[in-house]
């Protein structure tokens, strides 16, 4: 060991800095481990057991998963969420992008207020949004039904089995267009101005600028919004749970996988099976968002080569 005094000193500094860094992350990591990782592993553990009438829970390997994969109610819920996602996420993100482009083009009078108006629903709790839209859709005193009756049509059955998915799409879209719009708009505002100058000198119009400069520049924001929307869509819970009160027949107890897992655990007392359903849902979400990320990364590479 032929360390100089200076070397010893920097090493001591290094150690002290490492200690400080660990102390800075320790509180978060501790809660992260107990509130996120522990429940995650516990769910995995629980899902490997089955309850029996006699003798309590017994280890059953992947029986619960096999059961879930052939459970029409679980599969039906996942398929319904896929349908929901395929309709809702593109509508929401396209609207958000169009609003962001329109507002960023500076060609809208009162754009600042329009931006706030579109964003305000984000501050409304999902519970309140659902209660409110539930009333708006309703036959009793909903203005939609009132209006349709006034112009001579029957009141539309927006809470019926055929329309309920569309009605929920509308609620979720209403709530989250503004949030996504603000993210995309903020990203657009940070595009350096000289890029536009060059495009204008080339004679590019607003649409051309939007398509060739703005949208590629905010790509990563769009990807981020998409992933969060997909995760959110799969976890749909409050809306069907609350609309169940006003439309029990149209919703049922397994409308979304999350609602199904909740009802399994708290109504049927099938905790182990519920854990398997929740775990499986988590895996579906991870796989879908991972595949999405992978495919956008590949497309990006292809675009770079072209």
């Amino acid at each position, binding site marked *: 060991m032929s360390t100089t005094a200076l070397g010893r000193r920097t090493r001591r500094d290094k150690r*002290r*800095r490492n200690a400080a*860094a660990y102390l*800075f*992350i320790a*509180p*978060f990591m501790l*809660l*992260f481990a107990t509130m996120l990782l*522990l429940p995650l592993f*516990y769910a995995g553990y*629980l899902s490997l057991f089955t309850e029996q009438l006699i003798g309590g829970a017994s280890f059953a390997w992947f029986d619960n998963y096999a059961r879930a994969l052939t459970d029409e109610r679980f599969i039906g819920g996942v398929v319904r969420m896929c349908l929901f996602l395929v309709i809702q996420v593109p509508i929401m993100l396209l609207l958000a992008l169009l*609003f962001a482009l*329109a507002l960023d*083009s*500076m*060609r*809208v*009078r009162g754009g600042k207020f*329009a931006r706030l*108006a*579109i964003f*305000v*629903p*984000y*501050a*409304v*709790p*999902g*519970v*309140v949004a659902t*209660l*409110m*839209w539930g*009333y*708006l859709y309703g036959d009793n*005193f909903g*203005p939609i039904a*009132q209006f349709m009756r006034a112009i001579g049509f029957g009141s539309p059955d927006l809470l019926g089995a055929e329309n309920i998915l569309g009605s929920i799409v509308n609620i979720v879209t*209403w709530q989250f267009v503004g949030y996504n719009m*603000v*993210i995309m708009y*903020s990203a657009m*505002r940070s595009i350096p101005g000289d890029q536009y100058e060059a495009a204008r000198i080339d004679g590019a119009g607003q649409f051309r600028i939007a398509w060739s400069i703005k949208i590629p520049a*905010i790509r*990563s*924001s769009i990807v*981020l919004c998409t*992933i969060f929307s997909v*995760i959110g869509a799969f*976890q749909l*819970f409050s809306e069907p*749970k609350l609309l169940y009160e006003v439309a029990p027949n149209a919703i049922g107890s397994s409308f979304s996988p999350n609602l199904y*897992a*909740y009802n399994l655990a708290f109504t049927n007392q099938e*905790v182990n099976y*519920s854990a398997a359903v*929740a775990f499986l849902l*988590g895996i579906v979400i991870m796989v879908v968002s*991972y595949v999405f990320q992978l495919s956008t990364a590949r497309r990006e590479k292809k675009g770079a080569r072209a």
Partner: protein
Amino acid sequence: MSATSSTRLAVLPPDQRRRTKKRGRDLPPGEGRSPILTIVIWVCAAYFLLPLFWLLISSTKDNSGLFSSFGLWFDDEFHLWANLVDLFTTRDGVFLRWISNTALYAIVAGLGSALLSAAAGYAFAKYDFPAKKFLFAVVLGAIMIPTTALAIPTYLLFAGAGLTNTVWAIILPSLVSPFGVYLMRVYAEESIPDTLIEAARLDGAGEFRIFWQIALKIMVPGIVTVLLFAVVHTWNNYFLPLIMLTDPNLFPLTLGLAQLQAASEAGGGASAQFSTVITGSLVSILPLVVIFLYLQKYWTSGLTTGSVKE
């Protein structure tokens, strides 16, 4: 084209002219506001505002008024005050209790998670320590974990520890925000110069003093963003309190309103309290709307940081 906009400029009164010119800096030469685009956007904005307008109007009606008048305009009688009195006196004023519970949960969880995220994000951004890459990858991966899918095992663990039906059941899980850590890391990387930290070290400041007195101050806009979104998340959370709480005295607004609604649906015509539910909904969204409008500058700048970086 440029001729028309300069004529319009000349027609405007001087003070307005200056404003137009200032705004016009961002506009390409020869392109002004578009009336068609303005109308389209404002029609869309109306769609986002109409339900809230309906809520405002409806909170001025009593139960029979809701049924007998058109939803988007006032009834002959004005019942807002009576509805508010009803709302705050039903069941011995439990609604006020719900408001203070919600505020308590949201503020404690918001402040706590913002501070935890700031400390962790700062360490990830400014220190090189063993296992940093691995730990950050784990945190980042956790953003993908659907938190509601964890709710049931979390409930079982809390039940085992005897913590269900306590405030901790709501606050503890809400303190953890992996996305907040990610956001704070990006923010710290961009806003705190390494040279500043080095200079403070040369002056003999300890690591904690540097964080507490220098870094935290610089990170304020980012912290406000994380705080705001944690507050909204906790304020709006329904699933977690639904499974954790059975004591109405601990309910947050979301759970309380859902219960009121279920009761008035089940009660049918006789004991229906639709006007109470509607007025309660209005009251429960006002605080967040006000906070968002007031802190607009902060969250928009914070969001930019988080979203631009890959």
